[in-house]
């Protein structure tokens, strides 16, 4: 069985793989940590409502199919919007990577367990709903390959990554007030993202 990795390890790696023209929509714990690894104006930290990140990402991917879109989702969040898998699978955005961080709990609200068996079968469910690939992470090369395939227009791809929660919620204010977070949260983040997308030259969708 795959040993869980950490959010920091995954997001640091993604920070190196992400192109400047890729949009990243990050939510919940990943949204708190992502600003450590990115200063890009095409970031949106989507903390409310819980579960909406994948759908916001889909809208961006449909509206600008030439841009890469990476959604940093979480297992608890995904369960609040599981129907989004159906819609994304139906729309088939080619440059769309859906990363689902799995810690088996609602980390942001104190670690309550997910209902049922959580999201352990989500990669196969995603494939059955129209994602081109659903992958369960086994080592860092899976993330590299998924990002590469997303850039090559082989999406939508879902990559589920078992990861331990490594955010100290007693330090929440520190995360939220991080310089890189302030420009990507809420209305400011949305306006920066919209301006950044508008400034990105439309290219062939390839």
């Amino acid at each position, binding site marked *: 069985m795959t040993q869980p990795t950490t959010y920091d390890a995954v997001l640091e790696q993604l920070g190196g793989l992400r192109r400047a023209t890729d949009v990243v929509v990050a939510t919940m714990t990943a949204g708190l940590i992502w600003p450590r690894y990115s200063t890009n104006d095409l970031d949106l930290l989507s903390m409310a*409502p819980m579960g909406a990140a994948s759908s*916001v990402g*889909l809208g*961006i*991917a449909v*509206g600008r199919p030439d841009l890469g879109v990476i959604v940093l989702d979480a297992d608890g969040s995904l369960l609040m*919007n599981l129907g989004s898998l159906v*819609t994304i699978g139906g729309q088939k955005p080619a440059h769309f990577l859906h990363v689902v961080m799995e810690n088996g709990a609602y980390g942001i609200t104190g670690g309550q367990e997910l209902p049922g068996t959580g999201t352990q079968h989500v990669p196969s469910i995603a494939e059955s709903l129209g994602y081109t690939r659903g992958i369960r992470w086994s080592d860092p090369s899976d993330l590299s390959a998924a990002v590469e395939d997303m850039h090559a227009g082989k999406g939508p791809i879902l990559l589920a990554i078992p990861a331990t929660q490594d955010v100290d919620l007693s330090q929440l204010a520190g995360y939220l007030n991080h310089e890189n977070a302030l420009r990507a949260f809420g209305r400011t983040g949305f306006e920066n993202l*919209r301006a950044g997308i508008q400034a990105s030259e439309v290219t062939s969708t390839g």
Partner: protein
Amino acid sequence: MQLAEVAMQLIRREQFTHMVTIANFETEGLRSSFAADPDLTVIAACREGEGVAIASGLAAAGRKVVLCIENVGFFECLDTLRALPCDMSIPLPIFVGYLGRGATYDAVRPFAGGMAGHVSLAGTWTEAVLDAASIKHTTLLPDADEADARTTLEDALAADEPFVVLVDQI
């Protein structure tokens, strides 16, 4: 001229690009007209909150979007409306089917059976909830004068925030 025709004229004039919709009876005429235009794109979502989030993403990508739902679904998506288009001032005309407008339990029970109480409740809650959420709204009835309807729709399509148009049928 039918309301849907007036709406489509203005939607094309204002260069809207996408409709996000969740299946409903009341806005079906507008949805089918939108879908029939090869320059416009309809995205069907599974649930209203999901649809609002997709519409918000499209707006972030620089697209102009209308949303079509019914009022019982409007209740479902209030948190998403609050957190995305309302808090972030995203322009979003929303056509909301007014299920249960003026209905009473006794009047609709013979036709709606077990749905009767539900239908009546939706009519009672709709404008009260919109007012509580400070969401701009207006009601557009099928027999509306065309000039009035045009003005109402122009206001909704030009708003720089969510603007709900309640419709019996369009």
